[in-house]
């Protein structure tokens, strides 16, 4: 309690509140512009927050992400294009309602359930994180090695599309962490005589490249289309909201939980949370036939889940230092650069940071409604801002941000290379998220493995000797064997099918002979 008051005192200062307000506006703007994602917003915000104290810096990121994920619903409802991938699950549904003249109602529901979902995620974060931290206190390098393995495996397993490409993405991320001085002998690896490489790839420029530059490349490479925006009747936006909330209160609770737990899974964030909540909603709905024709139920579910996922993602990030989504991955990378190692120790050493995150989460979701209504009113204007004017500005910000961290143009080069790489990866269906987790966790994985091996004189069984470590190890092995079992089963089914086909074919052959 005392800590919460301290944290509140840290947050409720004019300077921090001003930063929260500015990041709220920034988040709403970025979220509402299709083609600019919340992860990109984080990558662009990081060079600024890097030079702030941890409390306002984290407050800025937490507020920004809550706002951006909601604001993604605005273009979804108005022009049928999701503002961020997290709103993609229900754009058709929202747009169908807009065409019935209910744009105001949809967005009113969106902003309300987003705030409720965000609060559910925040409350679970506040309750769950300290409990898990107690457990995590006992962890040694053995457990951290397995945790890193589980985190990385999850990030591959949850990728949409090909697992193989998810794995390649992860390997690219891990390979990037190999550059620099190694832990065992201090030997400079893959530096090729470049002094800037001794500390490895600079994290922030790499992130700006992968999320900022690649996004700018994608945006300028397609035609700038003018959206046909209809205005929103905001006056009676909230009439009928309470009836809707009351009717779907169980949906909200269920999707809040689904969203939060998907958020906790490493690598799976708000977008996957929304898709799952939408699918679950349709499956258990009394009126599944109405889905896709402009039915509010699915929007309530998915809109709650994506904001709830944000709080969930911070649970493993704060407790174990394992990111729950791309945004927390960037945050962890930056905390590392600032010498703050997320993990159970921050619960003891710098609890104010932790409580500041909690307090901001609550505050951000409370101010989401007034700020959100403002954004809905300005929605059609925001969509009229030409992209071709925004992209050069974003590009300049990327370059300055990368330069600012270490004051060297070398980092701008890192940004350029990472940007081109991320662009090619996405163009070839290789997801970027596993690579980010790889970059963040690669060093932890290698360092903890090497330390354990040297401690135990290269006896691999030590990874299974401690009980917790053994359990985590078994979970990892199960996760790894999952895809192989699936492939094996499919193969057996194919063989059986082929057999069955052969049997049905054989009599004919006999007839012929």
């Amino acid at each position: 309690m005392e800590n919460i008051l301290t944290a509140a005192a840290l947050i409720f200062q004019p300077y921090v509140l001003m930063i929260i307000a500015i990041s709220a506006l920034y988040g709403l703007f970025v979220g509402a512009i299709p083609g600019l994602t919340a992860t990109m917003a984080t990558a662009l915000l990081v060079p600024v927050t890097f030079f702030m104290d941890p409390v306002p810096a984290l407050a800025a990121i937490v507020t920004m992400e809550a706002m951006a994920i909601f604001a993604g619903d605005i273009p979804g409802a108005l022009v049928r294009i999701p503002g961020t991938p997290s709103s993609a699950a229900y754009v058709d549904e929202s747009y169908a309602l807009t065409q019935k003249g209910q744009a105001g109602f949809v967005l009113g529901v969106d902003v309300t359930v987003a705030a409720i979902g965000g609060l559910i995620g925040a409350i679970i974060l506040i309750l769950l994180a300290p409990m898990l931290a107690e457990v995590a206190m006992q962890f040694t390098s053995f457990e951290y090695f397995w945790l890193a393995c589980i985190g990385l495996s999850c990030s591959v397993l949850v990728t949409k599309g090909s697992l193989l490409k998810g794995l390649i993405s992860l390997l690219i991320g891990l390979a990037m962490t190999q550059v620099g001085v190694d832990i065992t002998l201090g030997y400079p690896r893959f530096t090729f005589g470049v002094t800037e490489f001794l500390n490895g790839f600079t994290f922030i420029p790499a992130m700006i490249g992968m999320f900022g530059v690649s996004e700018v490349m994608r945006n300028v490479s397609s035609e700038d289309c003018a959206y046909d925006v209809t205005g929103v009747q905001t006056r009676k936006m909230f009439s009928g909201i309470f009836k809707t909330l009351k009717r779907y209160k169980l949906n909200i609770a269920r999707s809040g939980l689904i969203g939060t737990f998907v958020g906790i899974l490493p690598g799976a964030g708000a977008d996957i949370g929304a898709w799952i909540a939408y699918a679950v909603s349709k499956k258990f709905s009394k009126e599944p036939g109405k889905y896709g024709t402009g039915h509010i139920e699915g929007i309530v579910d998915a809109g709650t889940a994506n904001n709830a996922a944000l709080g969930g993602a911070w649970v493993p990030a704060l407790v174990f230092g394992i990111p729950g989504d791309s945004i927390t991955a960037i945050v962890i990378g930056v905390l590392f650069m600032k010498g703050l190692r997320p993990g159970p120790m921050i619960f003891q050493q710098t609890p104010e940071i932790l409580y500041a995150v909690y307090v901001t989460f609550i505050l951000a979701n409370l101010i989401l409604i007034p700020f959100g209504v403002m954004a809905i009113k300005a929605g059609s204007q925001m969509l009229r801002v030409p992209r071709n004017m925004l992209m050069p500005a974003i590009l300049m910000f990327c370059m300055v941000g990368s330069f600012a961290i270490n004051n060297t143009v070398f980092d701008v080069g890192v940004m350029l290379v990472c940007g081109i790489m991320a662009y090619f990866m996405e163009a070839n269906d290789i997801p970027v998220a596993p690579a980010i987790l790889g970059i963040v966790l690669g060093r932890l994985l290698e360092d903890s493995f090497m330390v354990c091996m040297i401690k135990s004189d290269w006896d691999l069984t030590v990874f299974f000797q401690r009980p917790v470590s053994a359990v985590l190890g078994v979970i990892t092995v199960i996760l790894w064997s999952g895809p192989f079992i699936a492939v094996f089963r499919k193969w057996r089914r194919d063989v059986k099918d082929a057999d069955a086909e052969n049997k049905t074919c054989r009599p004919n052959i006999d007839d012929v002979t």
Partner: protein
Amino acid sequence: MRVSNTAIGLFLILFAAVVLWHVQSFPSLDNGYPGPALFPSVLAVLFIFCGIGLVIQGFRQREKLLKFDTGTLTLSGLLNMLFVLGTIVCYIFLAETIGFLIFSFAVLLILMKWLKVKTISSIVMSTGVTLIIYLLFAKVLLVPLPWGLWGW
């Protein structure tokens, strides 16, 4: 811009082979156990497996080896992209000579004109963005920008 799975797979295998060859020069630990070379080697082997997987997928889908599908990318889109990349290269080589204020204004103006933004909007935006970045980094966050020969 898509290339075939086979090509990506072959590239990964080649890359991994170079890594495996390069790590031979890394020192090992005193008692002969692998040290700095261990993780890069493991990653390289995994890259090779993935590369083989992609090549097999590519053959199964009967892809052309060097499919070069630009997809929805038009010529003007490609030029825009090259222009953006060129801007970053210019920043690397010129920003520290010219100085941030001039560089930023000029580059933003040229880029916006290239992307067919109206002249007046371009001038207003370029000035505005340059000043905002200048105030934010140099005055609020006190982070040095590339100052150039004339100090601005």
